[in-house]
């Protein structure tokens, strides 16, 4: 099947591994990620203010383009997913906001018809973890891996509707599907500090350290994430176990990992 794909700004730059391995793995699983033409950056964070319009137009344009091909829109970056799904929800539920947005759209009204999936949701709900399991050629059997959800993947739950926000399993089930043992720990859905790394590195350090220490105390040998900023904060702030994108492990498990060297 073909789906529309929104890579996002960071996946074209500092997080190329997150993107490249997502594409390679999807091909093995029978899904083609068709990159949206002329996509624009989602902005990284969703503004909950109902009168913020201009900052949400890029998301709506991407949603409309996917919709025009009758395809779901798939993202792999936690931040893009959060922004685009929340924008789509606002288009469905806030008529006044939707009307203002549609004034900027060239061709017709959009009311949130496009389905938005995170890549993990695509694995779970479209491909199916059982299918993933069948395609694994390099099992991670015996490896203890901690899933780091951070803040953006699951919240706000009323909009994201991805998993139980306080007791999630979508990443743990992914870890099991590639043969490894998931490590569950309390801080897996607490914030690393995010963009505060720009102006208060101390706060990012405190939050990130708490996540790393908690995962290690629970026995983790590796941490996986879907968010470039989570990965940066954890590595920058003293992670002494590998912190990798889940797509890299998926590509390795499926036998299509080559060293991209960040290219």
């Amino acid at each position, binding site marked *: 099947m073909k789906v529309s794909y929104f890579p*996002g*700004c*960071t996946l074209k*730059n*500092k*997080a190329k591994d997150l993107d490249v391995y997502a594409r390679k793995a999807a091909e093995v699983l029978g899904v083609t990620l068709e990159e949206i033409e002329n996509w624009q*950056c989602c*902005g*990284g*964070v*969703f*503004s*909950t*203010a*109902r*009168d*913020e319009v201009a*900052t949400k137009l890029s998301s709506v344009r991407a949603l409309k383009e996917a919709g025009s091909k009758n395809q779901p829109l798939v993202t792999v*970056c936690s*931040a893009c997913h959060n922004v685009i799904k929340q924008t789509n929800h606002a288009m469905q539920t806030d008529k006044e906001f939707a009307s203002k947005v549609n004034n900027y759209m060239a061709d017709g009204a959009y009311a949130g018809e496009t389905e938005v999936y995170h890549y993990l949701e695509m694995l779970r709900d479209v491909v199916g973890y059982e299918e993933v399991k069948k395609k694994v050629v390099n099992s991670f059997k015996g490896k203890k891996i901690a899933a780091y959800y*951070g*803040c*953006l993947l699951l*919240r*706000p*739950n*009323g909009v994201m509707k991805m998993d139980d*926000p306080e007791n999630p399993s979508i990443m743990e089930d992914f870890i099991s599907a590639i043969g490894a043992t998931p490590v569950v720990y309390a801080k897996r859905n*607490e*914030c690393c*500090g*995010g*963009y*505060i*790394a*720009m*102006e*208060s590195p101390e*706060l990012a350090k*405190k*939050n990130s350290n708490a996540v790393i220490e908690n995962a290690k105390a629970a026995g983790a040998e590796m941490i996986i994430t879907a*968010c*470039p*900023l989570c*990965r*940066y904060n954890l*590595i*920058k702030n003293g992670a002494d176990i590998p912190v990798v994108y889940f797509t890299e492990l998926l590509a390795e498990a499926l036998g299509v990992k080559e060293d991209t060297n960040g290219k």
Partner: protein
Amino acid sequence: MENKYLQEELIRISGVNPKKCMRCGKCSATCPAYDEMEYHPHQFVNMVESGDIEPLLASKSLYRCLSCFACIDRCPRGVEPAKLVEAVRLAAIRKQGANHLTADKVPAMLDEDIPQQAIVSAFRKYSK
């Protein structure tokens, strides 16, 4: 120092009804930026409700919210304090010349690994 117009605007823009708050403090208890905040999420709700908005507009607390949505999801009454923090922050930075982050300050904040996501997010939150 009551400011009726601003209070109504903040409530309209955020969609938050501060009167739903029952003062349980769970939002502040779960806030990952609590220690660095002068006014905490529950205080944003209470102070907007009472019209005591000027101290919030001037507070660095506006730039410590991480937009992690923890207080939004964990509030037992669905008050969603972070939406109010966002509205107050916008009321502050939308004024001419009031951007909290300007481009000339950015290079000093970067290292070679920092993802673009951090920079665009900071601009979305701190500048108009």
